[in-house]
């Protein structure tokens, strides 16, 4: 198991955490943890963006496969459905 230190925040910047995380965690795992720990609305869908590299992390891709490295900032963004 190999861990890295990253910053996770919400798109509106009202939630932010610095944490050490396993590189095998997927985008979906991190979103689920953020929704649970920060009590984000559960009737909204979210994606996760590596703001350092400017790339969206695929839901089932691990942080390792998504080339997330120490010090990166990941942002939980809503996936908007209304039009």
């Amino acid at each position, binding site marked *: 198991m190999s861990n890295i230190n990253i910053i996770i925040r919400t*798109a*509106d*910047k009202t939630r932010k955490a610095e944490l050490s995380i396993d590189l095998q965690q997927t985008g*979906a795992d991190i*979103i689920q943890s953020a929704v649970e720990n920060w009590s984000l609305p559960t*009737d909204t*869908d*979210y*994606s996760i*963006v*590596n*703001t350092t590299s*400017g*790339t*969206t*992390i*695929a*839901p*089932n*891709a691990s942080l390792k496969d998504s080339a997330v490295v120490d010090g990166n900032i990941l*942002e939980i*963004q*809503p*996936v*908007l*459905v*209304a*039009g």
Partner: protein
Amino acid sequence: MTFERYQRHSLIDWFAQDLVQTAKVAIIGCGAVGNEVAKNLALLGVGSIDLYDFDTIEIHNLTRSVLFREHDVGKNKAEVAAMRIQKLDPNIKVNYFAGDFWDLLPLDKAQNYNCILCCVDNFEARIKLNQICTLTRTNLINTGIDSKFTQVEVFPFANNKQVACYQCNLPNTVYERMQARYSCGWLKKIAVTEKKIPTTIITSSLAAAMATSKALALINGNEFTKAESILINSATGVSSISNFEQNNCCIGCHTTKKHIFITKSSANITSKFNFSDNAKAEVNTSDPILVSYRCVKCNPNTNDCTVVFKKADDFDASLTTCKQCNHDSVDVVIQDSFTTHELINNYAGKKIPVKFLRLENKQQTTIIELE
């Protein structure tokens, strides 16, 4: 007259009015964002604008819809929006299609658009439009809003065979939420309360402005090499731009080959119906088909089933309750994959009730659009 109308545009060095005037654009969904996009494209002088929407205007739409008036309530959204933007610029060509784009937009027509702007309000329609655009290699601009955020996503399919599609990065929760609306596979649940998402003209106009800007860039021939997403917080002005990478496990595009062949065929199943030299080759249908149903209590013999062969989406879960014994004992058979042999032997004389059939081989994806 026409030159004078666009004279200010001609002063902008990057603005190619001649390309804009020959451009063909479709807007799917004429609600809050669709209204603003249609207005913007018309004022820019986009030569041909097609509007699609099955929905009718309700009084609550008027707080976000610049093209609708109180006396329009009850009328089709696409029809009214088309009439109003035609008045904004009589020089442009405007068409409207009052109905579901899935039924009204043939694939060869989709191919002719410079781009399609997705302004719908649900994931099912976005996924269907994504399918049309990935298969026809038509540029897609997706929009989404809530009360605070605006999202615009650009999928430059026309010039890039290896580009992420809308589904490549779609969260799993979207599929879970969609599936929760159905029971027994693809039968609609009888009572589903749709979540109402509050929005304002602020986020819808912001989304439309950004989407129109991206459409203009595509029309002007700007090269997008990757799919991209822009998220703007309308309250703070903070924005975030990110790229989408292609997902090798994407259920929307990972089976699609680099070479796509699109053809047309009659939907009628006859003895000559043939889409492959191999009668055992499987063909996938674009929509799930309700093949048959049978009450296991009233008709224990498996051969005593009622053959339906219609789009599963046209039925709801009430079908699983037997009208004779009133028990929830009806088994339904829903398929989205058939062999030629199976179709000819079991369903000759019927029409295949879907938009298209899809075949895969090692080199090519073949799409047979049904007429």
